[in-house]
């Protein structure tokens, strides 16, 4: 049979690898992934686009779909966790949150639309620097994490808040520090089966596989933390 998986783009790498692993065990099951931003995927599902499993990078969109009755709510699980880090050139002098205000520019995902940006805002608020930095024009909003990373990587900004998994894509930029866990609520990637998947045994099979320990080694390799 066929399993349609809507995967948040920040998980595409992980998901692709998991699909390969899975199909070694179940060569008859065809997994059809669809990559996009969490919001776009949610809207597609809301409008009845075919999807059996939704892997989101943003818990809000999962909640939204549950409210709209598109999700088998009892299948909602935390799939993986991620950590927020601050990346930048090695020359950038920033070892902790308290150093940020000295920097000229810091990139982050737009807190309105990008979860990673929300976490970053939380962290900066906690440090009490967000509003001032925003007012001073020190904050550069990106449309997604990847864009924030590009800015830091190319030195357009002194640094950027990104997920640990994204930081591994950087060519020039290094992780300058990990944001302490107490500064932001935990980064979670929820996964759930949709109401549309009703009775698709293969979908259940894949769902069970990715939330099982079989997926753990790959997650760790790519920098995720386990649920």
């Amino acid at each position: 049979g066929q399993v349609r998986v809507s995967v948040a783009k920040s998980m595409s790498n992980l998901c692709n690898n998991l699909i390969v692993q899975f199909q070694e065990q179940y060569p008859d099951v065809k997994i059809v992934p669809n990559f996009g931003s969490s919001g776009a995927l949610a809207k597609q599902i809301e409008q009845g686009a075919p999807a059996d499993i939704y892997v989101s990078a943003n818990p809000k969109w999962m909640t939204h779909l549950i409210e709209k009755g598109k999700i088998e709510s009892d299948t909602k699980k935390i799939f993986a966790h991620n950590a927020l880090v601050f990346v930048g050139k090695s020359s950038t002098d920033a070892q902790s949150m308290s150093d940020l205000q000295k920097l000229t520019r810091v990139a982050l995902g737009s807190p309105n639309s990008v979860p990673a940006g929300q976490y970053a805002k939380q962290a900066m608020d906690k440090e009490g620097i967000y509003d001032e930095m925003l007012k001073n024009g020190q904050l550069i909003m990106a449309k997604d994490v990847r864009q924030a990373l590009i800015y830091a990587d190319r030195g357009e900004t002194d640094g950027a808040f990104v997920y640990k998994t994204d930081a591994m894509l950087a060519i020039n930029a290094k992780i300058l520090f990990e944001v302490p866990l107490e500064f932001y609520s935990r980064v979670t990637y929820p996964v759930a089966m949709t109401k549309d998947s009703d009775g698709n045994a293969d979908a259940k099979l894949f769902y069970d596989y990715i939330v099982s320990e079989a997926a753990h080694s790959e997650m760790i390799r790519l920098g995720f933390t386990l649920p």
Partner: protein
Amino acid sequence: MVNEITMLTLSPQDISAVGLSLKVACSATLISTPFGIACGYFLAFGKIRGKAVVEGLISLPLVLPPVVVGYLLLLSFGSNGLIGKFLNLLGIQVVFSLTGAVIASAVVGFPLMVRSIRIGMEAVDQSYISVSRTLGAGWWDSFFTIVLPLSGRAIFAGMSLMFARNLGEFGATVILAGNIPGVTQTIPLAIYEYTSVPGGDRMALTLCLVSISLSFAILLISEAINRKFRRG
């Protein structure tokens, strides 16, 4: 990025993306052409008031961000949408299918095609149409034997413009058709996916170069056709 151009190889998934892109751009262009010709004709020759409104509507996909266009298309063609419900009855699935990618591309490229065709049709001398009518040609006959050939250059220009635009279409496609490797993942979507893979930039660049070559090829072909039209 620049120092990594050395090795340009395409993965099987890339090749399928190139194939899909070609398929989508070609189908979207070919399917839109009759409608583009009809709209161009109407805007050039139509005598009804409110042409500006029609023109405005046709230009909408140009004005709105492609993502919004994609979302509006999703609303219409989704299984809850008006058109979507109807098409579902016929067993046609638009969302997450190549059909969807074609529709998204067609809608986004349409205003460009229509503008080009309109300009060409405005240059067709009405007298030729009159002559053909008095020679016994009905409206359609005259349209096909006089209007179309005489605006052929403009039509081909419009088609090549639309084709080029389609090669780069991302926003509307990703919403309506999804980004499904091997099914709806065209070149721009594949490029998008590469940006979340370590070292994906080089592969993205390779795909860009493929896009550019394709568009150059189309440009040269359309120039050649133009030259033929100018001569004949």
